[in-house]
């Protein structure tokens, strides 16, 4: 089985069929743009180096002629040593699957200007805004290049390598102040203000700069209706950041005509916890528990993506039992997450509390298993590079683990799904409120870079587990459910289908878990101080319950911490078409549409 893992590495000939399209596309692009496109020859890097002035043409050709129609991720990188700003684009083909074509674009660091790709892929919208916000890369032609995670008026671009926080101690962990002469301190005691704040030199508060909301409302006109006799204004309503149906601290600025939505602008960053900045200071292993807190409903899957990315860099192999345990955990997480998502969706549709509570009871049982296996209900921190942290426990709630899992997978969860199915799928209220609401067409779903259930409910049968199989998914028998209407109801059905498919996978995994009892669960001895043997970039992507979760990690040789650490967060990018989906619907539908996307703010804002 260990050979199989090697096959997942793109450089092996086992996936030659998948790799061909990438090579062919690269060759075509080089032929067509000989001056602008070259191979990226840096050590450990793959893909193409594209010059900024031809980027739009290259991207158009890639999308229209070569078939790489899906822009998965846009990553800004601060190459401070070369005095460059780099933007990395990961593009994939929805129909062909396989690995992606990576485009690198480098521009001058002092004046980083790139053409925006939003006209070609509107899904680049938020990601480019994020790169502008955090790295100060300007995208020419972007229709709305405002800050997205921090606020307007924020001083500086925090992900730049020369930007230091208030509580900055050292570039890399571990900090020298902790040992051997550790004198405990609270970081805030060392600042004048006693808080995590700092103001630019010479800045005096005047009161004018406090109005950070104005830009939000620019472009919104308050015109009287033309109809005679009617004296109505367009109305701007703020939903969130404190709103019971926004699933956290998410905010939408909604412009209404009567009760109909004309325009909706998502505002995020209320939970921006600087995951990436902290991640670049952390050592590789220290990032693991932080990934738990991205999509805090599915920490196991977050771990999985990150360990895949780092394992690619390390070149470590994973023992068979560990792989099976990983799949077991990840699929249980998917069920957990979808139960939560559907519970909340129904809550948003008006079925207040009751269906939610029944789903949560079952989720608690899965969490019991996680707690028993990993030590924590939510923040599992269970996977390690080259394996998992512990073997499965002997007992879960006084029941033998295998018998617990069997009962859970064969009897308990199917019964709960049937119960939920019977209650909701044909419920007239659910149907009336969800069918035909929040429609996203297949073209839009792909263009807006959506992923996961949102993409699949719109008719694109794309799942990373099948498109670019990792772990043992290639050898497992399961279907990728797909629905074609792209409305809330289909997104609900897709999640129901996916849970059943997960059960199917779990049924196949259990015999392997039993057969590999006592086998090693980690490759070698886990190290706390890992130094990367080679320089390079790595992109580990997994099918998270919310969609494609990708970790872009770059490192230099013999480094113990990542140079750039970027998370392609599915919830964040799935929000890009929210405004489009809500247009023309009523206020009450916004809540349901948002619920059907299933976001977790920890991942949206990071």
């Amino acid at each position: 089985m260990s050979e199989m893992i090697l096959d997942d590495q793109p450089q092996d000939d086992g996936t030659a069929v998948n790799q061909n399209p990438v090579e062919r596309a690269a060759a075509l692009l080089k032929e067509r743009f000989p001056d602008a496109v070259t191979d990226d020859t840096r050590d450990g890097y793959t893909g193409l180096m594209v010059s900024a002035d031809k980027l739009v043409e290259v991207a158009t050709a890639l999308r229209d002629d070569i078939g790489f129609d899906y822009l998965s991720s846009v990553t800004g990188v601060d190459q401070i040593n070369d005095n460059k700003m780099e933007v990395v684009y990961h593009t994939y083909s929805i129909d062909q699957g396989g690995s992606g074509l990576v485009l690198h674009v480098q521009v001058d660091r002092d004046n980083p200007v790139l053409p925006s790709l939003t006209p070609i892929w509107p899904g680049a919208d938020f990601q480019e805004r994020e790169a502008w916000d955090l790295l100060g890369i300007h995208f020419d032609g972007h229709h709305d290049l405002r800050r997205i995670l921090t606020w307007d008026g924020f001083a500086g671009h925090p992900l730049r390598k020369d930007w230091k926080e208030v509580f900055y101690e050292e570039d890399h962990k571990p900090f020298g102040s902790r040992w051997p002469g550790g004198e405990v301190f609270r970081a805030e005691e060392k600042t004048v203000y006693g808080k995590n704040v700092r103001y630019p030199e010479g800045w005096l508060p005047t009161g004018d700069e406090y109005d950070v909301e104005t830009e939000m409302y620019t472009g919104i006109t308050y015109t009287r209706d033309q109809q005679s006799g009617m004296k109505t204004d367009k109305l701007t309503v703020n939903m969130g950041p404190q709103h019971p149906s926004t699933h956290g601290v998410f905010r939408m600025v909604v412009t209404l005509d009567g009760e109909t939505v004309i325009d909706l602008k998502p505002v995020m960053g209320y939970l921006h916890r600087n995951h990436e900045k902290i991640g670049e200071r952390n050592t590789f292993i220290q990032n693991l528990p932080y990934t738990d807190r991205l999509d805090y409903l599915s920490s196991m899957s977050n771990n999985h993506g990150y360990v895949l990315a780092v394992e690619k860099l390390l070149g470590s192999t994973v023992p068979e039992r560990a792989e099976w345990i990983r799949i077991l955990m990840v699929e249980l997480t998917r069920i957990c997450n979808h139960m939560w998502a559907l519970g909340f969706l129904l809550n948003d549709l008006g079925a207040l509390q009751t269906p939610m509570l029944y789903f949560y009871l079952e989720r608690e049982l899965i969490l019991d298993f996680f707690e028993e296996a990993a030590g924590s209900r939510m923040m599992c921190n269970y996977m390690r590079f080259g394996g998992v942290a512990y073997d499965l426990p002997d007992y879960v709630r006084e029941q033998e683990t295998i018998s617990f899992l069997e009962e859970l997978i064969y009897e308990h969860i199917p019964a709960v799904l049937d119960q939920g199915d019977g209650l909701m799928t044909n419920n007239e209220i659910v149907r009336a409120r969800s069918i035909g609401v929040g429609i996203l067409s297949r073209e839009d779903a792909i263009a807006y870079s959506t992923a996961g259930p949102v993409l699949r409910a719109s008719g694109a049968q794309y799942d990373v587990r099948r498109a670019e199989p990792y772990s043992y998914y290639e050898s497992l028998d399961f279907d990728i459910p797909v629905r074609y209407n792209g409305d809330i109801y289909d997104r609900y059905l897709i999640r129901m289908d996916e849970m059943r498919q997960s059960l199917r996978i779990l049924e196949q995994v259990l015999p392997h878990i039993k057969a590999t009892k006592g086998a090693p669960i980690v490759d070698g001895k886990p190290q706390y101080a890992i130094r990367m043997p080679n320089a390079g970039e790595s992109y580990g992507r997994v099918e998270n319950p919310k969609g494609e979760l990708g970790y872009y990690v770059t490192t230099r040789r013999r480094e113990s911490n990542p140079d750039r650490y970027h998370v392609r967060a599915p919830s964040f990018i799935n929000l890009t078409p929210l405004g489009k989906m809500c247009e023309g619907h009523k206020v009450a539908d916004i809540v349901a549409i948002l619920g059907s996307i299933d976001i977790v703010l920890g991942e949206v804002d990071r």
Partner: protein
Amino acid sequence: MYGLGILKGMAITMKHFVDSYLDDIFWAARGGRYYNDEALKVRQGLKGKGVKTVFYPEEKLSVPERFRFVPFLVTDDPPPGQKWGKDWCTSCGICAKVCPPQCIWIERGVQPNGRPKPEPNQFYIDIDICMNCGFCMEFCPFDAIKLDHDYELASYDRTTAHIHDKERLSKPLSYWREIAPKKAAAEAAIRDHVDELKAWKKANGRDADPSTAPKMTEENTKQLFYRGEYY
């Protein structure tokens, strides 16, 4: 048909409602459904029927051995009249280095001649920073730092209660044995095993056949983080 959904929903609610009372009758002769450890175990497992509520604080849902909350330091069992014994911590600093949010401060002890002493002079953990990840416990080569199971730490003032110093952190080995008996036994077995291995190596020389070396029992290995050849 309109209204069918409501009826279905009410039927399910009714089922759970009735289940609770049936379960109540079942447990009536067995010590009661509530405030009864036996009943709690069943109720919280897969076989549970009806209302699943844990009546905290009267009944507490047990936490597993691997449960992680804030860390504590293991010391020897205390001699009579004292709260704890000798520290197991050698102030090697691995936990402070691996800690992801860097919430551990260790002041290494100094011998009179100025050389480092293998025990901490002071040991602080800021539990307002700690993320309960368990890396300190996982990588500690001396089994000296463990994650506690005591989650009842609510306080009215964080300035005094939330930086745990060595005094607050230290707990005797017997406490660890109590909260995680299997794991503690396995760790003790490993320590013995390592000594045994050393003795075996000394006795047999380097060229001895490794297959004849003493082995750990499977039961014990399972309780541990995988540690390669146990260190």
